[in-house]
Every structure is written in C-alpha cells, then in structure tokens.
C-alpha cells in the first residue's frame, strides 16, 4: 500500500538534563520532501495493516522532522541529548506554488473518484490562487516530540501565504534555532579512574573523561535558500559527586578543566593529591553494594546564532555518568 512505502526506520523518547542514562540520536531528513505536497505513492505493494508513516525504531532520539525541507548538519548530531524539546513542535514551511498545488489536488481528486470516493472538497479554493503571488505553506512537525503530531493535527495542513508575508506559526529564524537546539546532542561522559577497579582509603583517585569530549559540538538547521541557525555546545567543566556528602568520608579535588586530568606518574600536586579527583577517607564496606557511587557531570554552555543576526544563550546541558567505586582499607602493623 502506498502508505507503507513511506515508512522509515527510527525512534523516540528522551530523558531529562542531567540524567545519567540519557537520550539520543538525531535523525536527519536533510532535504526531506514535504509529504503534504507529495503525490501518493504507487499502490504496488501488498495490502498491509497500518496506515501512515512509520515511527523511527529504537529507543533513542533527538528530533525527527516530518513534512519538512529543513536540513540538519554538524558534529552535534548522534550523541547524547538532554531531552530538550522545541517549544512549538509544529510550524509552517513554504511548500508549493498555486499551480503545483492545483495540479496535485486535481490528480488526487481524480484518484479518489476512481476509487469511488466523490468527497466534496472544493477544488475552486486552489484554482482561485492560480495567478496570485504567494505559496502554499504546509504544516511540519517534530515527530519525536510527544506533542508533535497533536500540534500538527490541530492546524490546517496547508495555508495560502501571500508573497512577502509569513503566516502565524510560520517558520522563523528563532524557530529554526529551536529545532537546531533540540537536535543538538553531547556525548555521554565515559569516566576514567586511576586506580581503575578498586581504590583504598587515603589513596588519591584521579578522574577524567575519555575521548573527544573537549571539542565543541554544533548543529546547523537550514531552510535551503532562506535562512539557517547554528547552536553550539562548548564543554565548560566537570562536577564530581563522590557518592557521599560526609566530608569525613571523601575529599574532592576540583581543578578539572573541561575533561579532568588523566593520571600520569609523578603528575600529582606534590602532596599526593590529584588535580581532579577524589580521596576517600573511609571504607565503602557500609555503602550499598559496598561501593561509593561516583557521579561525574559534564557541563556544556550552549549558544545559538541565526543567519539574521539573532543570538540566544540557552541553559547549560548537563550530562552525567556514574561508576561504583569500592574503597577498601589496607591494614598494616608497625613494629618497633
């Protein structure tokens, strides 16, 4: 059936900022064709149960632009999202000329009649626009937003927009920036520790992040030939939560920079203290699972700019990861 042919693999769901098990892969539909204006697919497939377009599969998601010509690009796609959602998850985009829309409607009407459906849509609504300056705009939405489909369904599927004007709810540079922001993801911190598997009372534990987390991440949303907006996340720093609030149990060292300091022999501060890490002062034997739960939170500043000179500072993105750190005691006997 024609509806099945538009099915695409994909996903859904997101999580809140700061959650350790977060989201998201952004799905790209760069240059996607507006389904609003697309002709029906050929009915050359066997009949099938569902109707409409398939959700994307999996359990990770950034944004999924539906019926949209907006393209997404940048190295900020495909990592961990903070679950940011576009304030208005549906919007209008320029779609097709009056002539093209009329041809489409006539063709669809013909198909419908041939199927025995003589529904009473008034073709004249479309014919009257031929010769006028302007375009039909179509409704687009983020299908990964739980409110996206409901938002789109609540608005007319297409609206006629005279040349030089923008309809209420039409795409703007600010909306484009919000789409880029929702698509932006940052990598989940991969915690590296030294010592790695088990620590001991009074032994300094170095903490740093693995990989390329120090590089800025950005996403650019582009409405081809019209405007674009870029949102960039830059690593700002690390927060370390040793898993206990008792100062007699752990001391945190906060000279972490953006990614912490990898352990190297002789690189301590001269007093056996790490620049970035934690020194546990009590055994973890009395803790749940007999380990402290160390949480490292990577903090990213987020700034958006659009091609019309607009700029917006967003709340920082905070993504966390946790590791259990068992801390043992070394018993020693001093003989005189």
């Amino acid at each position, binding site marked *: *059936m*024609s*509806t099945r042919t538009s*099915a695409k693999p994909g*996903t*859904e*769901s997101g*999580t809140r900022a700061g959650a350790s098990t977060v989201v998201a892969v952004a799905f790209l539909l760069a240059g996607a064709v507006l*389904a*609003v204006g697309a002709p*029906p*697919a050929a*009915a050359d*497939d*066997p*009949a*099938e*149960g*569902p*109707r*409409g*377009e*398939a*959700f*994307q*599969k*999996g*359990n990770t998601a950034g944004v999924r632009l539906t*019926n949209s010509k907006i393209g997404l690009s940048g190295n900020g796609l495909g990592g961990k999202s903070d679950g940011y959602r576009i304030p*208005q*998850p*549906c919007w209008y985009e320029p779609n097709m000329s009056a002539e093209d829309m009329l041809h489409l409607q006539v063709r*669809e009407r013909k*198909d*419908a009649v041939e*199927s*025995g*459906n003589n*529904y*009473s*849509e008034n073709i004249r609504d479309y014919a009257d626009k031929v010769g006028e300056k302007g375009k039909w705009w179509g409704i687009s939405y983020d*299908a990964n*937003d*739980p*409110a996206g*489909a*409901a*938002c*789109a*369904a*609540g*608005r*007319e*599927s*297409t*609206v*006629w927009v005279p040349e030089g004007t923008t*309809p*209420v*709810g039409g795409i703007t540079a600010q909306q484009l920036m919000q789409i880029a922001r929702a698509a932006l993801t940052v990598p989940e911190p991969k915690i590296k520790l030294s010592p790695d598997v088990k620590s001991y009372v009074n032994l300094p534990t170095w903490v740093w992040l693995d990989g390329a987390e120090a590089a800025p991440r950005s996403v650019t949303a582009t409405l081809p030939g019209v405007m674009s907006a870029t949102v960039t996340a830059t690593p700002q720093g690390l927060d370390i939560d040793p898993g206990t609030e008792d100062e007699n149990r752990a001391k945190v060292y906060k000279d972490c920079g953006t990614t912490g300091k990898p352990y190297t022999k002789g690189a301590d501060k001269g007093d056996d203290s790490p620049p970035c890490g934690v020194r546990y002062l009590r055994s973890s034997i009395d803790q749940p699972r007999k380990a402290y739960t160390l949480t490292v939170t990577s903090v990213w500043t987020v700034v958006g700019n659009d091609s019309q000179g607009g700029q917006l500072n967003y709340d920082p993105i905070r993504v966390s990861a946790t590791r259990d750190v068992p801390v043992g005691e070394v018993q020693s006997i001093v003989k005189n």
Partner: protein
Amino acid sequence: MLVPACMLLLAGCAVPDADRGFTPGGGAEPAAATAATTATAGYTPGTETITAAPGLTIEVEWPDEPDPDRSSAIKAFADDFTAQWRAVGTLGKDTSYIKGIDVKSPAIRDAIAWVRNFLDDKESARGVAKLYALRVPAVVGRGAEVDGCVDLTGVRLTDQEGTPLARQPTWLKRPRAVFLQTAGLVHDADGGWRIRLYRYADHSDERAKECLR
C-alpha cells in the same frame, strides 16, 4: 481566513503523557465491562464487537476515559478504523470512512490508498480485527493524538467472494499483525473530531511492544 484559526492554536497547551514506562498491553485498562458509560463519546467501557461487513467484525476495547473530549477523540479513531475495514468488507461500496477524515489533509490520501489497495487486488477480508489499549497521549490546542494497538491475527484475506486465499500474507501473521496505530485529529467547529494524519509503529518498534499480550 486561515490566520485566526492558527492564532488560536498557537496558544495551545501541550499535555503529552511523556516519559511513561513500558507497560504490557499499553497500560490502558482493558475494558472491564463496568456500568460506567462514557456518555458523551457514545460508548461504554468494555469490549464491543462491531460488525463491519458480513463475516468481518471489529473487536474494540473501549477504555474508561473520563475526559469527554478525549473519549470522543478515541471514539472517532475507532470509528475510522472500523469504517475503513467496512469499506474493504463491502468491496468499496461503503465509503463512509471519508466522513471521519479531513479531506484537505494527508490522511485522506493514506486512507483512500489503503482501501484501494484491497480493491485493486480484488481482495476483501473476513474474521476479527482487534483494537485495544486506546488512549490519548497528547492534546495541543484543537489537535490530539490517539494511539491504539491493533491485532490482525484473526483476519483472513479473501477474494471478493469471501473465500480465504490459500496463502495468507505475513502482515496478517505474528509478529507483523500486531502493531501500534496512531492518528492526529482535529477538533472541528461542530464538536466532532476528524483525522488529519496517520502514523504507526511496527512490531520491531519499541512502541509496538506495548501492544504485546
């Protein structure tokens, strides 16, 4: 003319049931046949068997949805589902499903193509199609999303005389026959709901796993 309608919608408040955990069967209460009646929507919570066409029935598990707007959206969704199977079961003679769809929306193409596909192949259907775990996960302004689980394992593809085909398609067998169907609907000025878009999650999608029983 269109602008005022859009302005109304801009102030729409999103009420999505986001971040809900996995619940077998979708988490919707399956229709224990209580005395409660969702009067405004025109259904009683519980299981109802509706004859769509000779030998073709739709088994709908109506949820206990106390909100009248949401329950009427659910009713519109289920009515549309039933009406399209009615079109298939009557070999296209019954086209009443058009009434539940906004004819200026993409949904009209999807629905006509879905029905026409049976007709072009000179096929019909018999058996029982089940619709359950009906719910409204989001309402935004005049729009709403309705989700429902579909089980087509009880449906048999037939020729136009009603004789089951020797080879039944895979989409009528597990796992493909169980999936999540969703729709976006608009609340019309006359108080009714009309469908404007369809989406679905097939058996391999995390969302459809909510439909497993």
